[in-house]
Structure formats: structure tokens, C-alpha cells
């Protein structure tokens, strides 16, 4: 078996892996490697042919492949090594990575720092317990996206979409463009999990109905899907008697959420956050396993790739500094909690601050949709920082930079989101660090 050694290795070559590798190289890591199991770099972006990527990062509306291309060009122009068609089988806590590929067989890499960048996968039917038999014609929306956009194969002609996540909405339009009839989108929650712009330009533009507060209670068909039964649910998500109806279809697409792809971490005993499904990480995106960092959808599910690239740059830079022995020791870590109105926060831990650091950027998911709101930061039970938000949606990540001087050396750190007393015209600007 061949053996190699590198300063920084990213597992995954999507936007997170590429941005982390580039930042690591820039921060002085001499030998950087990207390991990607697909035949090309770019990750999930290569199948997301719609536009809407990169408004923040490149101030331009790009398609998924277009955004990926910008990073692929930067990687090609660097001396970062890239192994394609190579799957990582294990990454041990001592930095020994085992991978396999059809051309090189099994390979061992010894890494000083590792960046997890494996992205996420879609929840499947099992995860949502839709009853009924298992006929053909039921796909996740992302699998259908790959079929239509990369393999040129239409998974069905009469389509029902379960769940109103963005991938499902995007696929409603895409299937319509390819000549399929999308009959309806059913969402069990009383609000959509997709971006408003996608509801407008993917459903309303084509007269596709969106049923909120509706659950698919059965999928019919023996060999192939022939239809679904749908019913209204109450506020405890229980089916309301007498509301059931049937819709005929030959294809069901599931868009019921994404979960970080953490098999490798789990196998190596990585400490995970039960709510995000990703690792517990500090502001350097270092996990609880020293020398292991995480960024992108493997850490927490993002809706904007721009934030993925930004977070991955933090992880890559920190990984390089760790490899050079320059990352400050974490010291005694403080945990960051979420209270009222919020579901998740990343980072969940704060290590000792870097010298000269002015602020720490936090990412949140709200627990439920709200109108004008205040994001509050409480340090040792005292309100230390507040930011106005015009609207709050669970589908859209909240981002806030908290000044280091406001965090100070408080022992308990908590974030909350509360309804604002008055109407808010515009969000407070995120304070960027120079």
C-alpha cells in the first residue's frame, strides 16, 4: 500500500473542500490535498444548474456549475494536489486517512490537519415514515435533479412533490420545463421550508399549487407509483378525519430535508451536535477531535453556498495554522447556547480568542417563522448585543458578527430571538471585519 504525507487534507472537493484547501495553502500550509470521490470537483453544485449562487461572494448571480468553476480554476492555478475518483474509507483521530480508488487501490495518507467537507445527504422516505408499499418512482428531489440535469433522464411524467424544501421547488420548475406535469407540492408544516423567491418563480409562475399543513398518508402502486393519498393535519401534525383525498401520479419526489454526511466522523468517535447533525465546533471550526476541522454542509446545512465558502476559508486557515503549530491552544472552552426562538447555533463552542480578533461570526437557524424580530446576545445573564431582523424564517440562516469586547470573559453565552416591539424597515447591516 502506498503512503503519503500532507499538512492539510480536505475530505470532499465541493465548495467547502475547495475553499478550505485554498485558504490553507494561502495561510502557508506547504502540502495540501483534496480527496474527492466523484470524477470531478464541484460537489452538489454541478447538478444545481439553476442560477442564484454567488450574489454575496462574487456579487453576480451564477449557476451552480458557474460558481464551482470559479473555485475549480483557482484550485487548478495553485499547487494543491487533487485526487479524484477516490473515496475516504476512514480517518483516524491520529490523522491517518485510508482511501480507495479504482486506479490507485488502497492508499494511506498521514495528515497533520484534516478538514471534513463531505457535504450532506437527503432525508429519505424511511426518515419520514411515509406508509405504503415501496413501488418504483419514488425519488429524493436531489436524485431526480442529478437524473434530469446530468444523466438526461426524466423520472416521471405526472409528479407529486412531498415537502417544500428548495430542492423540491427547484425540481418542480425543472420537471415542468422538461414537459412533466407537476400536480402539487404538499408541506406538512403550516409554512414553507423554501425561499420565497423559489415559491414565486418555481411554483406560482406555473400555477403549481402548494398545500401547507398537508401530509401524504399513503403512496399507492405495486410495481410503479400510481398515486398518493393526502390529508390535512392539525397543529399537532395529526391527520384530520374526513380531509383525505387521492391524486394520481407516476412519480413522487421527496424534499424533506438534508442531514450532514457524518459517517466518517461517527466511526472515529467525533462529538456531534444532536440538532445540527454536524460536529461540535469552535470559532476556528475545529471539532472536539484536535486537528480535525469541519465546514460546509457536513457541519450544518447551509442554504447559501456563499456562506459555505466563507466558513470553509475559516476552517482551512485554522487547519494550516494547526499544522504549523500556530493555532492557539483552545484553553478552557465555553459553550454557546440557544434559547427562545432559535434552534441551532454554529460555532457551539468558543476557544480562547486569537490576538487582534475583533468579532466572531455566528450562524443560526430560527425555530419558527416570525415577523420583525430582535436577535439578542446575553452574556452572564446581561443583554450585551442586539440586532434587528426584518423577518425570520427557519429556511434562511441568520448571520451575526458579535464583537469580541461584548463577549468578554463571560462564562455563560446565550442567543435568543424575540418579536420586535415595532416594525423594522431593514435589517441592521452585518458589521464586516476589516
Amino acid at each position: 500500500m502506498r503512503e503519503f504525507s500532507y499538512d492539510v487534507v480536505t475530505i470532499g472537493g465541493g465548495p467547502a473542500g475547495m475553499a478550505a484547501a485554498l485558504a490553507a495553502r494561502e495561510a502557508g500550509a506547504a502540502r495540501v490535498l483534496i480527496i474527492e470521490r466523484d470524477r470531478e470537483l464541484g460537489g452538489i453544485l454541478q447538478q444545481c444548474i439553476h442560477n442564484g449562487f454567488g450574489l454575496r461572494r462574487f456579487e453576480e448571480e451564477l449557476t451552480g456549475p458557474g460558481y464551482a468553476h470559479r473555485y475549480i480554476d483557482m484550485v487548478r492555478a495553485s499547487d494543491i494536489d487533487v485526487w479524484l475518483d477516490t473515496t475516504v474509507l476512514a480517518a483516524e483521530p491520529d490523522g491517518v486517512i485510508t482511501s480507495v480508488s479504482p486506479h490507485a487501490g488502497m492508499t494511506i495518507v498521514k495528515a497533520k490537519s484534516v478538514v471534513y467537507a463531505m457535504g450532506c445527504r437527503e432525508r429519505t422516505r424511511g426518515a419520514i415514515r411515509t406508509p405504503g408499499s415501496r413501488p418504483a418512482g419514488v425519488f429524493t428531489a436531489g436524485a431526480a435533479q442529478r437524473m434530469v440535469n446530468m444523466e438526461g433522464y426524466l423520472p416521471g411524467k405526472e409528479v407529486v412533490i412531498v415537502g417544500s424544501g428548495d430542492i423540491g421547488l427547484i425540481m418542480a420548475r425543472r420537471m415542468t420545463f422538461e414537459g412533466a406535469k407537476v400536480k402539487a407540492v404538499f408541506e406538512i408544516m403550516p409554512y414553507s421550508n423554501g425561499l420565497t423567491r423559489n415559491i414565486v418563480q418555481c411554483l406560482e409562475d406555473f400555477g403549481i399549487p402548494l398545500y401547507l399543513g398537508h401530509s401524504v398518508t399513503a403512496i399507492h402502486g405495486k410495481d410503479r407509483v400510481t398515486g398518493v393519498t393526502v390529508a390535512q393535519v392539525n397543529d399537532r401534525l395529526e391527520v384530520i378525519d374526513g380531509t383525505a383525498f387521492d391524486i394520481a401520479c407516476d412519480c413522487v419526489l421527496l424534499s424533506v430535508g438534508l442531514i450532514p454526511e457524518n459517517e466518517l466522523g461517527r466511526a472515529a468517535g467525533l462529538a456531534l451536535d444532536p440538532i445540527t447533525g454536524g460536529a461540535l465546533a469552535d470559532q476556528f471550526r475545529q471539532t472536539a477531535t484536535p486537528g480535525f476541522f469541519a465546514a460546509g454542509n457536513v457541519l450544518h446545512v447551509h442554504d447559501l453556498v456563499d456562506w459555505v465558502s466563507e466558513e470553509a476559508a475559516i476552517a482551512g486557515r485554522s487547519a494550516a495554522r494547526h499544522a504549523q503549530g500556530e493555532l492557539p491552544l483552545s484553553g478552557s472552552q465555553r459553550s454557546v447556547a440557544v434559547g427562545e426562538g432559535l434552534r441551532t447555533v454554529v460555532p457551539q463552542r468558543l476557544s480562547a480568542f486569537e490576538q487582534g480578533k475583533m468579532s466572531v461570526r455566528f450562524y443560526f437557524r430560527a425555530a419558527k417563522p416570525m415577523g420583525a424580530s430582535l436577535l439578542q446576545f446575553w452574556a452572564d445573564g446581561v443583554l450585551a448585543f442586539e440586532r434587528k431582523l426584518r423577518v425570520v424564517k427557519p429556511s434562511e440562516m441568520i448571520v451575526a458578527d458579535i464583537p469580541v469586547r461584548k463577549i468578554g470573559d463571560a462564562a455563560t453565552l446565550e442567543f435568543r430571538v424575540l418579536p420586535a416591539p415595532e416594525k423594522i424597515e431593514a435589517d441592521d447591516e452585518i458589521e464586516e471585519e476589516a
Partner: protein
Amino acid sequence: MMARVVHAIQCIGCPIGCGGEVIVENGSVSEMTGFTCNKGLAYAAEEVVSPKRMVTTTVRVSGGSLGLLPVVSASPVPKERIFDCLRLLRGMSVAAPIAEGTIVVSDALGLGVDFRAARDISSVQ
């Protein structure tokens, strides 16, 4: 006398998703509320007279490492012509290699909109 019409418009200009109203009097926009940037104002004013959308789809590729090339309109297409553009593109095939940004169709259907390749595709020997 022409009527005063209030249109509720949801901006799709960016993921923030502002909602607002456009008031049209005697056939022209007299008032707009709810849009928080110039891009949104321009979108809303156009949406009530001649709605347009960016179009992304795929075109068949011959001799390439991939069988499909993603393409994107260089500017928005009038909404009622989207399916005409899709039909035009569905009937086409391009030969690899292709570089990102290559114009696949120029001035599609005389609409003044080009369609461009959204990625590179290398050829297979």
C-alpha cells in the same frame, strides 16, 4: 377613465424576498411600497408590465465527457416566451469540447437574449 390597479408583488431579486405593492394608474406605475433596494424597485415596476425570468436548462452534447451541457440565459427572458426558448434548446446539440461562457444560441428567437454554456465540457477521445 382608466382604473387604479394595486398589484401585490413578491420580489425575487435576492433571497431576502421583500413583498410590496405596485400601484398602476392610467397604465403607468404611480407608486411602489415595500421594496428595499433599487434592484427590487426595477424588478417590481417591470413585473407589472412585462414579467421576465432568467432561464436555465440543458442542451445535448456529442463527443463529451458529459452528455448534457447546462446553459443559462445571459439576461431575463419574457415570461410568455420561456417555453419557446426551451423548445429551441431541446432541439439542439453541441459538440464537445465546450468552454464555459461560450454562446450556444445568440439572439434566441429574436428576443435579444443569448444562451451561454454554464460550464466546461471536455471531449472524450
